[in-house]
């Protein structure tokens, strides 16, 4: 594969995947996930997120294109490869008539580097009894168990699909803290690929953002770059009225009587100043948080 850069732990190139009769779930999907950070994978429902994640996790095959995880095709992972990749599904996939303790023992047998102390610690912290059956736990607790099982593997790559979906606020913070702890302990040796609708969580921990829409990755860059470049600019106090004002390449333009609100990429503040000057207007630049940015990009 051409872009086989060892610095990227996940590389997908021009992946196509169809579902049913000609429904294109992913089309020309390309992503490169650098090692050793947190990659936040965002997208609306139906944009192809879970399909992409399942292909990366080796549960689905692309109809066209290549995927390389840890340098290999994930669908043909050997058990040794699987030991390096932790996966948490969007759905509850743990067998329901296992007791928590028994399931932990079962999984531990497949991973030579299983972190027993961490499991005991987290089960205590999240207040999960080893004697209860998985099927009897609440949804949120089931997710916590799945999360613990993924963490305990000490994976090089942790793939999380909507991991905090049914957790309450406190549980979510605890969950984020555990991811951060994993990153600290691994000291650059672990990459987290996380997909979530809770953008405030992503904002706390991610350093890279990818946004998928219509089966394609339309944004892939460091979170800081995204936050620093997508801005809302309010042009006001026009000399000659706000009519006919257009900011080139804007995501959204809302015109008022004497002011215009523009959402756009601002790579160079000078561009904005020049544009304002050209139209004889003043301007203010407003910061946008990740949720706003995502909204603006997804609804342009």
């Amino acid at each position, binding site marked *: 594969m051409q872009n086989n850069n060892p610095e990227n732990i996940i590389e997908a190139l021009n992946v196509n995947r169809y579902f049913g009769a000609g429904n294109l779930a992913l089309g020309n999907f390309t992503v490169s996930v650098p090692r050793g*950070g947190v990659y936040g994978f965002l997208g609306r429902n139906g944009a192809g997120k879970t399909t992409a994640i399942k292909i990366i996790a080796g549960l689905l095959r692309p109809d066209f294109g290549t995927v390389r995880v840890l340098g290999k095709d994930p669908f043909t992972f050997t058990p040794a490869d699987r030991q390096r990749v932790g996966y948490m599904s969007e759905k509850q996939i743990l067998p329901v008539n296992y007791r928590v303790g028994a399931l932990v023992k079962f999984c531990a047998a497949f991973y030579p580097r299983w972190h027993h102390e961490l499991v005991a610690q987290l089960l205590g912290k999240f207040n999960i009894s080893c004697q209860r059956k998985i099927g009897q736990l609440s949804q949120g607790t089931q997710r916590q168990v799945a999360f613990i099982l993924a963490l305990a593997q000490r994976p090089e790559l942790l793939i999380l699909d909507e991991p905090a979906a049914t957790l309450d606020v406190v549980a979510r913070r605890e969950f984020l803290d555990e991811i*951060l*702890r994993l990153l*600290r302990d691994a000291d650059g040796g672990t990459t987290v690929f996380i997909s979530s609708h809770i953008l405030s969580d992503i904002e706390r*921990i991610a350093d890279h953002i990818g946004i998928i829409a219509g089966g394609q990755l339309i944004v892939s860059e460091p979170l*800081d770059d995204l*936050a620093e470049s997508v801005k809302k600019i309010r042009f006001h106090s026009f000399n000659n009225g706000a009519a006919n004002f257009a900011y080139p390449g804007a995501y959204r333009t809302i015109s008022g009587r004497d002011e215009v609100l523009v959402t756009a990429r601002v790579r160079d503040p000078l561009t904005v100043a020049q544009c304002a000057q050209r139209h004889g207007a003043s301007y203010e630049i407003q*910061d946008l948080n990740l949720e706003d940015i995502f909204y603006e990009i997804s609804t342009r």
Partner: protein
Amino acid sequence: MFLHLNPQSGEPVYRQMVRQLKQRIATGQLADGQQLPSVRDLSAELHVNPLTVAKAYQFLERDGLVEFRRGQGTFVAADRDRFSKAQQQKLIAPAVAQVVSEALHLGLSVGQLQQLIRQYYAKQQS
């Protein structure tokens, strides 16, 4: 070290860190030669990605405010240049812009504002 970070403000977290650390160095809360917490410790304390802390430290180092000592950690630069005039002005510019904006709004003249500023300088320096 208690830094106030708001991941949802729209300003990148590393920038918030750099800004606050610069302020503390400038106002002497972090003394020359003082050791800063390790990337690992600070990221644990602040509940942020270690890469963010590392990036903030890198920016501070680039600006000459901190230095990495191999095997020891990160320290406030002892022999750093005091902030250049340009840097000083850049740091205080947002606060000044806001004051000026409000003064204009209230109808104060430049002279009146200057007088007010001189009063406060005198008060705080004593």
